[in-house]
């Protein structure tokens, strides 16, 4: 059984902020509701539903966010998004015929790199997933994975040789996830790559990738192209996972130690009662 209430009170991306110019109007679907997203001459974004009722709206992390419910909290913060010297890159939405939760879980997974992103994010025989730490941070109610490392032949557009890349993963909301990774030109900093997902329904979504990088050299189209290549490889997996929804019953699929982040994510969803896009049979 799905309980839409909890899910509908979250914030979801409805537009790329920079693409919503003054006077523009975009129509998007969020959880089977049609929303109209506009920006007035003064620069203020407005979202209305199909009854003409104003919906909550905020602008953050390069996107316009809205909700078909009543979000009890402001949107999660992402301080790196406003840090000096970072280049902010919108990669645009990609439609995926899969549950938004499967899309987020795939983003948290490193064991697939050698097989799905062959010779880019991973390559055989470097398939071992070293132990890493995962926790549900109760103070912020977020899932975090830290001390994640993986050998990558070409970790980013700015990397040319293979390196062991270090990662941290953060899930601040069920349909939003952020990755911090070794930044080849600035060893002291971490590049930020985020994925914000808008469910059109429980088995269909638009995924917006957004990056905050220390990379002033790579051409914008190359950065976007790199991210698109990676994501289209992921999509070919996501659209062929059975069932389409994310199973929350641990007996339905067989994780191993490498899947600690996914195990924590599923447990966290279950604990929150977030069932939109989840397969809850057996739970």
């Amino acid at each position: 059984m799905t309980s839409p209430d909890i899910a509908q009170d979250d914030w979801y991306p409805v537009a790329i902020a920079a693409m919503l110019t003054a006077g523009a109007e975009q129509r998007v679907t969020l959880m089977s509701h049609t929303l109209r997203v506009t920006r007035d001459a003064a620069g203020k974004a407005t979202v209305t539903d199909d009854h003409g009722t104003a919906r909550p709206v905020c602008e953050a992390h390069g996107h316009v966010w809205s909700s078909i419910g009543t979000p009890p909290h402001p949107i999660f913060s992402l301080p790196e998004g406003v840090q000096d010297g970072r280049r902010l890159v919108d990669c645009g939405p990609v439609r995926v015929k899969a549950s938004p939760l499967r899309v987020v879980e795939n983003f948290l997974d490193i064991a697939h790199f050698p097989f799905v992103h062959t010779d880019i994010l991973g390559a055989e025989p470097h398939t071992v997933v070293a132990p890493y730490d995962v926790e549900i941070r109760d103070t912020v109610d977020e899932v975090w994975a830290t001390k994640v490392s993986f050998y990558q032949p070409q970790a980013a557009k700015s990397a040319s040789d293979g390196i062991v890349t270090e990662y941290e993963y953060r899930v601040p909301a069920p349909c939003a996830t952020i990755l911090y990774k070794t930044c080849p030109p600035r060893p002291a900093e971490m590049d930020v790559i985020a994925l914000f997902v808008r469910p059109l329904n429980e088995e269909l979504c638009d995924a917006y990738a957004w990056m905050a990088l220390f990379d002033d050299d790579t051409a914008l189209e190359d950065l976007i192209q790199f991210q698109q290549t990676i994501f289209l490889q992921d999509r070919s997996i996501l659209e062929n996972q059975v069932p389409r929804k994310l199973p929350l019953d641990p007996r339905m699929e067989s994780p191993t130690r490498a899947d600690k982040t996914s195990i924590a994510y599923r447990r966290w969803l279950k604990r929150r009662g977030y069932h939109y896009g989840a397969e809850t049979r057996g739970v």
Partner: protein
Amino acid sequence: MNTAADITSWLPVALSDGLPDGGVMRVQTAGHDLALWRAHDHSVHCVDNRCPHRGMRLSFGFVRGNRLNCIYHGWQYGETGACAYIPAHPELTPPESLCVPTLPCVDHGGRVWITLDPDATALPAMPAHPGLRSVAVNVSQDRIQAALGSGALPSTTHPQRGCSARVLDTSAFDCRIALDVATGDTATLVVSIQSVSAERSQLHTQLTAAASVELKVAASRWLDALRDHLEATA
């Protein structure tokens, strides 16, 4: 008339020639989603089309040696369906419980057969003819059998490739059809029918003797006409 399902629980799901060593293909029948694969020792195998790890369809996988590898995280399944290797943890011996369900699968008579019946008796001897092609038809297996049984078969017109056809005989496993080609050549086509769903089937076809390219083209065009005829009269 007897249908194949009345007599045998074996279903033809591919031509032997259509599944080379290292090949993987998806098979759907009666609500089952399956992956068919051939190891490099030439043996054929049929598994549930779902990796137990994270649900990826195994028909997208690849074969190395005598193992089917899932495309998502590279888990390797041996010929018994047991998971033999997890690349993220090479030192780990996967527990016996970690396996993908298998179905009985044999390469016999030029075709690959599976059965959903664990007690199915072995298939009788049958000749292994060279495969012609497999054809998808949007018609149920029963209707195709009835159409072939009625003897009203289409013919094709072409100065060299035109064919007229008549049913020679029908068994529990296949139907033999004589083709008379405009050039004066003749050929015998063996047609096995696989039910895919209530509205869809696959015809797996073989020619009983080595044939020239021209003859194969003529027979293949006739199969297109048969499919169109079946779909038009369904």
